[in-house]
């Protein structure tokens, strides 16, 4: 075969071919440079977007303790059985995987002797929207089920025990109105965008669980779940550990709280017991109560319906939300107003023949009893209406109004609880506007004995009592006395808040206190049934009428501070239906105060 020499023309063409190849490779190089280095961030974002799911992890909620460190709200593990779908998958077909999961659940149901809690439909929904997360097949399983599962676990590699924190109230119904309860929230609006999967947080719905929700809730953490192209979990890495919530210490004393609840357990009513030197709520009870454990766990609709349709309103915290006319328990305020204004003194007296005529209307004393000549101290002791009608008129409503406002009537006390009512203190301007009629002497008479349009909450009465007891210093009542952020050993105390000092002159205040001492201390006092043998106490009873004429019923009241000399406690109790404060409430308070002082003795 003869060889053909390569011509120059052909060599030139070869060079052209080489240049074409070179430019082809150069073009590829440029394109790769552009896509990997120029637009890398864009593709990295796309890659992350499609393969990484952020799961929000709720934090363990802070605990709640009473003043002695008794746990009032705790977290218990709530065990469940989860199915890991990525283990079940054989093909990318969702339907087959869901069938497999369903078969596994039925198999497990047989072995564990449980009814399936999940339906095929729910499995499909889970595969559709939450494929990267395990499917929770059973919640709230008991130790027996766990033991059976553990025995058979080898047979079910795709299933495992998981746990969740469940809110538990070890004291049951005790202090339920104060503690409140929690429920799970599905989404928190500002945060959802950060996360693809939002594991529900517990959120306080009432009580301090609600008011201190922010502190108790802690800081949620997050986890990155890498998913494969079919959407199943591939692996996961922790992004941020959740920080458990702050523990809360309450001012209440569980033993006294239980005594307070017992004191009103057989009726509907409320009682508030305060520490007069700080405004700390030592006990606060509202009856009827409810068990927050029932509301917090998986509650059936029927249970919820039963609770909210109960006529006696167990969810309603009468101590802060209940509005009552104070009746005669308001008289110390009227007496103080008159004394401070100089409109009355120790020697002021009025004559009582059982009733008082004013403008054609008759205002009478309780049961029309005639007290004869009464001075201020005995008027308090005997709860003489006729005296206070005249004292009120002599003092004038403006003075009563301003003193009552200063003492906190008609406004919220500012306690750290939800649903507090502000009560109502009628003003002259209000009556003109609302009723279209001017304020008249009859209105003054009504308010002077705690009736008419005046409305108070039991808490307001307790605060007022505490203010009398401590010499005129109005503390803001409170429940939380300390916060303990996660990881700290001791609670950081929250200082009490003195709202204002009313500067009640000591001499005049002493008259009122003496009258109140006699209410309990003298056999003729209306509250004598509350008397304890070894502690001198002072107080005031009250019986407020409500309802229409003819079918009138009574709210029975009593307020007490004790001990008389160096007061520590102030208490206010109201019972929805009763004969009178002296008969219906005084014995209850005696038992409660007995408990308070015996508990104190046990501590001391």
């Amino acid at each position, binding site marked *: 075969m003869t060889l053909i020499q390569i011509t120059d023309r052909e060599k030139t063409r*070869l060079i052209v071919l080489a240049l074409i190849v070179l430019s082809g490779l150069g073009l590829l190089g440029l394109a790769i440079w552009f896509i990997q280095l120029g637009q890398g961030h864009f593709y990295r974002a796309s890659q992350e977007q499609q393969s990484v799911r952020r799961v929000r992890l709720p934090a363990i909620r802070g605990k709640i303790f009473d003043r002695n460190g008794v746990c009032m709200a705790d977290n218990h593990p709530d065990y469940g059985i989860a199915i890991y779908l990525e283990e079940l998958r054989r093909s990318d077909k969702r339907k087959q995987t869901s069938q497999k999961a369903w078969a596994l659940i039925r198999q497990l149901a047989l072995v564990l002797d449980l009814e399936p809690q999940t339906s095929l439909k729910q499995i499909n929904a889970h595969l559709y929207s939450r494929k990267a997360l395990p499917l929770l097949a059973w919640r709230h399983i008991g130790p027996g089920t766990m033991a059976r599962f553990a025995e058979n676990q080898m047979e079910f590699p795709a299933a495992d025990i998981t746990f969740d924190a469940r809110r538990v109230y070890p004291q049951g119904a005790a202090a339920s109105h104060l503690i409140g309860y929690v429920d799970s929230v599905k989404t928190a609006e500002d945060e959802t965008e950060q996360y693809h999967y939002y594991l529900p947080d517990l959120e306080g719905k009432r009580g301090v669980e609600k008011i201190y929700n922010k502190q108790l809730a802690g800081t949620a953490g997050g986890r990155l779940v890498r998913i494969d192209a079919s959407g199943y979990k591939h692996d996961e890495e922790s992004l941020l550990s959740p920080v458990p919530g702050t523990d809360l210490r309450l001012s209440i004393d569980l033993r006294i709280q239980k005594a307070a609840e017992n004191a009103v357990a057989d009726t509907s009513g409320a009682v508030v017991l305060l520490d007069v030197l700080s405004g700390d709520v030592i006990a606060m009870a509202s009856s009827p109560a409810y068990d927050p454990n029932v509301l917090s766990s998986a509650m059936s609709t029927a249970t919820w319906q039963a609770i909210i349709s109960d006529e006696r309103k167990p969810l309603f915290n009468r101590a802060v939300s209940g509005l009552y006319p104070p009746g005669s328990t308001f008289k110390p305020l009227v007496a103080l107003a008159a004394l401070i204004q100089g409109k009355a003194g120790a020697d002021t007296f009025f004559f009582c023949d059982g009733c008082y005529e004013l403008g054609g209307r008759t205002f009478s004393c309780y049961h029309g009893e005639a007290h004869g000549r009464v001075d201020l101290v005995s008027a308090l002791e005997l709860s003489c209406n006729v005296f206070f009608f005249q004292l009120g008129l002599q003092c004038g409503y403006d003075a009563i109004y301003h003193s009552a406002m200063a003492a906190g009537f008609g406004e919220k006390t500012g306690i750290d609880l939800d649903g507090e009512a502000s009560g109502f203190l009628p003003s002259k301007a209000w009556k003109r506007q609302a009723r279209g009629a001017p304020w008249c002497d009859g209105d003054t008479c009504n308010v002077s004995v705690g009736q008419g349009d005046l409305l108070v909450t039991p808490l307001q009465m307790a605060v007022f009592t505490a203010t009398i007891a401590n010499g005129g210093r109005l503390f803001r009542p409170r429940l939380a006395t300390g916060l303990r952020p996660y990881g700290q050993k001791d609670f950081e105390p929250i200082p009490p808040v003195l709202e204002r000092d009313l500067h009640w002159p000591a001499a005049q205040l002493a008259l009122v206190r003496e009258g109140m001492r006699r209410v309990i201390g003298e056999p003729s006092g209306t509250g004598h049934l509350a008397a304890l043998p070894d502690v001198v106490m002072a107080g005031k009873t009250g019986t407020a009428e409500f309802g229409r004429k003819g079918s009138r019923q009574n709210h029975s009241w009593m307020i007490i501070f004790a001990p008389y000399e160096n007061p520590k406690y102030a208490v206010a109790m109201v019972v929805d239906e009763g004969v009178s404060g002296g008969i219906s409430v005084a014995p209850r308070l005696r038992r409660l105060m007995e408990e308070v002082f015996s508990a104190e003795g046990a501590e001391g």
Partner: protein
Amino acid sequence: MNKIQQLRRLNLPIMAALLGLLGLGVLFIYSAAFSVSDHGGMPLYQKQMAWIAFGFVCFFVFALTDYHALAKYAWLLYALGIVLLLLVFAPYIGVKMYGARRWIQLMGVRFLQPAEFMKIAFVILAVRLFGYPGRNVRRLRYVFLGVALTLLPVLLIMKQPDLGTALIFFPVLLAVMFTAGVPGRVILCFVAAGLLAVMLVAAFVLVPPRLGMEEQEHRRLLGGIGISAYQRERIMVFFDSGRDPLGSGWNKAQSQIAVGSGGLLGKGFMRGTQNILGFLPRTVTPTDFVFSVIAEETGFAGAMLVLLLFGLLLYGMLRSAFLAADKMGMLLCAGLMTMLFCHIFINMAMTIGLMPITGIPLPFLSYGGTFMVTSMCALGITQSVHIRGDWR
């Protein structure tokens, strides 16, 4: 020259590039196929190593054979290639996979893709046509004959259907004619015709839907000019990257994300999330998208290394062409170099979204037995030319 002396004259740049590419290929086939649950068989990377071993045997056989002998049997090889291409359609012998007949089986074992064999046979025949002594390549009869001899296998391969592979033949023919000295105006006509064809296809695919033609109607129209429904989709996806991201647009989008997210140094061996998590289509990643895996896991640095190795390989082949002892040797090297370059360019351009998705493998890196052997044969022939080249 005895065999040992011949082997001393091997083209070293080619050998260096070859070994580098083969090593990278096995490594990243291992990575790409790692998450695929194998069904008890030999892992893919081991199969690839077996094919490489067989490929080296072919390589040395061709390197040590005088390439003029090949030219002598050019027609025979071509005829054999055509017969094999026809056998694809024969019952029991041809195998249908993924909707295409590309394989021939013997005793139930798939062992050959005739189209790959045809690539080599075709280059040899083209070289014989334009490089045989005494031919005046300026005469148009050779050009027409060349086109006719190209169209035969092209049509058969398109029938499989495998448009991508079929389209490789034209640039190879063009390169051989160009280097053989076919007049420039003829070459320009070819280039113009090619560009026109591409533009026409693009126009046929893209314009009617814009004018409001019904999809069914449009498919029928394209079917009439030989464009199937999935080819239509691929072309439409190429021009509109947002199209059908979970269907026909998936591979392109995922491959681009894989390459793009690699960054400068990559995510690390076996750490490419696109690869490991299965976003790159698992069935074809070791074959068609192995470069995406390399670019994702080794980043720009690795991608440039691949490009440099290919550059070195093509440089070596061009050098062999320059140093060839005769025109036939030069044309062989140029033709085979063009064949490999087309594969390299089309595959890499496809993985970064510069070209529509086609099933063209990447030489020496992609998994694939027949193509590995074909590529090794191509280099063996090139070495044969080099060994017998006009240099000291």
